[in-house]
């Protein structure tokens, strides 16, 4: 039976990022930055279970107007049992590229990287595509998000987005406690983080 294609949400951004503690600050930066730009981040943490994982990821990409693929983690994962690189992120980028080529008006993808020119070695098929270089810094992520997404009115500045990031960072402990979560990389904590970021934007606009 052919798979049903999800409706595209115009403001939704699929975030293809590593879920590890070292990436925590940048994860929050992506959320704070996208929410400040009036966009809705979506991740594979937030999708309902019960369907095959690959179908869920494909449906998520198809349902989002934009996708961001952070290829910062190209190094070997040294956790046992095997020392391997993680292929999930480039694989999901491949899915997004294929979807965009089939439906150019429905999807736009962006590649984010930590180091300049590294992608030319790690993924040379993308030669000719300029990745957004964030240098592993929160301000870099916010700057690059602002570079790729332009609001026609009320485009936030990087310091404004940084303020939202700081507010969300400060509220992490409360978010974790309220969600009963041990990590921010859980569906419930992700939802709360997004909402807290939106609250922070609302509050800063009133002050």
């Amino acid at each position, binding site marked *: 039976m052919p798979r049903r294609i999800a409706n595209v*949400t*115009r*403001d939704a951004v699929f975030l293809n990022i590593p879920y590890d503690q070292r990436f925590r600050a940048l994860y929050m930066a992506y959320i704070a930055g996208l*929410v400040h*730009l*009036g*966009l*809705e981040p979506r991740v594979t943490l*937030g999708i309902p279970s019960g369907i095959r994982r690959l179908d869920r990821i494909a449906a998520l990409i198809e349902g989002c107007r*934009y996708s961001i693929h952070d290829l910062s983690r190209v190094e070997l994962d040294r956790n046992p049992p095997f020392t391997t690189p993680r292929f999930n992120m480039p694989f999901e980028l491949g899915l997004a590229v294929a979807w965009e080529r089939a439906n150019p008006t429905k999807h*736009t993808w*962006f590649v984010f990287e930590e180091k300049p020119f590294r992608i030319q070695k790690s993924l040379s098929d993308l030669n000719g*595509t*300029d990745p*957004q270089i964030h240098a592993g810094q929160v301000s870099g992520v916010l700057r690059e998000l602002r*570079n*790729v*997404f*332009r*609001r*026609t009115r*009320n485009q936030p500045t990087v310091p404004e987005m940084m303020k939202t990031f700081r507010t969300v960072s400060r509220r992490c402990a*409360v978010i974790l*406690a*309220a969600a009963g979560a041990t990590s921010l990389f859980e569906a419930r904590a992700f*939802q*709360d983080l*997004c*909402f*807290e970021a*939106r*609250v*922070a934007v*609302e*509050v800063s606009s*009133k*002050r």
Partner: protein
Amino acid sequence: MTRPVKITTPIPTLDEFGERLGLSKAKRKSLGPIFIERRPQGDYVVRRTGAGKAIKVLPTQKEAVERAREVSPNGTILVERVRSSTRGALDKWRKA
């Protein structure tokens, strides 16, 4: 350099955004900020974002802040500035 995309859709309200995230109404309420405003009568009203009905009306700002903290111990509480100072002017909000 990547060409930027233009976002023309309006920024969703707090409630719309929470609904899209799949948060329940109760959850949206509990996480949303609480505002304390001074009324022309001189008393203070405690209200949630976008709510017409007040949670409580109290005679002093201090009592209003205490009530807001009881209602939302983890939430953001914003108090209307009632004095012009070097740190902020009237019609602006400060954190409780």
